[in-house]
């Protein structure tokens, strides 16, 4: 078999080198270069997010609950024009809920959707239990209404009523 000229291999080698340098200095991700670390940490607890709609603010309870006892009706974030993964990451990865971060979340959901509806923002936590089952818990974080944002009073936020 004839040997290939070295030029394609050299160029590929340089691309590979750039790939290795970029992913090794940027936590495995420098698009489109990646070490594809998704799902590499198996068995870890996870946190996602969802929205429910309640008829009025008074019907809201702030306790952590199960899906069966969920407060309100689940809202399809797709119907709001929001990407679920974005929404979920925004809620679950934000450590410090500043006023601007809360405003950004309302902006993402769309103020027009909150004008005549009461949305409860939930964090959802999943983990494996010792009895070999998956436990999923729903914790209300905020209530978004037309002109109000209320934070769960039982959680450790820096402020109580932001808006």
């Amino acid at each position: 078999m004839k040997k290939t000229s070295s030029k394609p291999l050299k160029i590929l080698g340089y691309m590979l080198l750039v790939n290795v340098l970029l992913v090794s200095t940027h936590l495995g991700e420098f698009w489109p270069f990646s070490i594809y670390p998704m799902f590499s940490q198996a068995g870890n607890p996870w946190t996602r997010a969802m929205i429910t709609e309640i008829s009025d603010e008074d019907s809201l309870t702030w306790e952590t609950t199960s899906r069966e006892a969920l407060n309100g009706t689940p809202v399809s974030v797709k119907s709001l024009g929001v990407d679920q993964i974005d929404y979920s990451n925004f809620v679950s990865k934000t450590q410090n809920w500043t006023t601007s971060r809360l405003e950004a979340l309302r902006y993402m959901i769309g103020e027009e959707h909150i004008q005549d509806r009461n949305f409860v923002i939930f964090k959802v936590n999943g983990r494996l239990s010792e009895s070999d089952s998956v436990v999923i818990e729903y914790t209300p974080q905020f209530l978004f209404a037309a002109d109000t944002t209320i934070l769960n009073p039982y959680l450790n936020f820096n402020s109580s009523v932001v808006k």
Partner: protein
Amino acid sequence: MRVLDSIKNNLFQPDKELEGAHYIFFKIFELFVASQAIYLMWYWGLYTLRISDVVLPLGLANYVDISFMHANNLPLWNAGIFSALVGFAFFRVGNKWLYGIAFLLLHFQYVARFSIGEIPHSANLIGFSILCIATGLIFFEAPDKRYKFILGSIIFFAGLGYTSAAISKLIGTGINWVDGRHLWLWIGEKGTDILSREGAWSPNFLQSLALKSIPIATIILMIGLLSEFFGFLLWFRKTRMFIVTALIGMHIGITLSMNIRFDAFVAELILIGYAWPFVIKKLWPEKSAYGKKLTRFI
């Protein structure tokens, strides 16, 4: 060294005489990549209009404040310029750097769109393809050399990506990664995503089966891990067709068990994994010869 020689001979096929069918296939492949990239640019661009905050800077956004792409129409201008550049580049009108510039614009669109926490990988192969086409056009002039480098390098990075994903799992968790209970946890996570996205979710047949039995869930994960690990077999012509079939099966399994779709990724795997020039030549032996006339567009 024999392994290295084998890899480069398999990837770049220096002894292969290209025929018209190869060039027809190449332009179909390039059309797929270009149209997917244009679609992503507009899709991401339109969504970026809704973003007003940076949660997680990615790529060049680590060095450039990407918020300049937010709260204005720049993502749409970016998509428009990208579409025009790729359109010209597809017909080889203009400078050979057009795809290179387009790649940079694509990167900026990605990091602007995904600055709020998500790091999706479904578009990575399209991104690599634009990069490899750009590199091939810049460094090679002869159509056959461009063809061989572009397809060879894309196949190389596709194989590397899968094997790298498997190694990440083995490093991150170990061989215990295949424990079926891990799949239960992911089904719960992805089920929650569907519940949030659609407002309702209940497990499908495969998910129900996995949730009922740890051994079944373990076998599903084991098949997935093995398919990924052997992704490097894409580099070899004799094994390419078999491993690409296993990888497509794995993606179908991921879609059914975890509701994660990699449509463009799978479509591109189908294009690069099978001997389409051979099929084109067999189906249209006379017409495929006209493909030689496409060399000025390679």
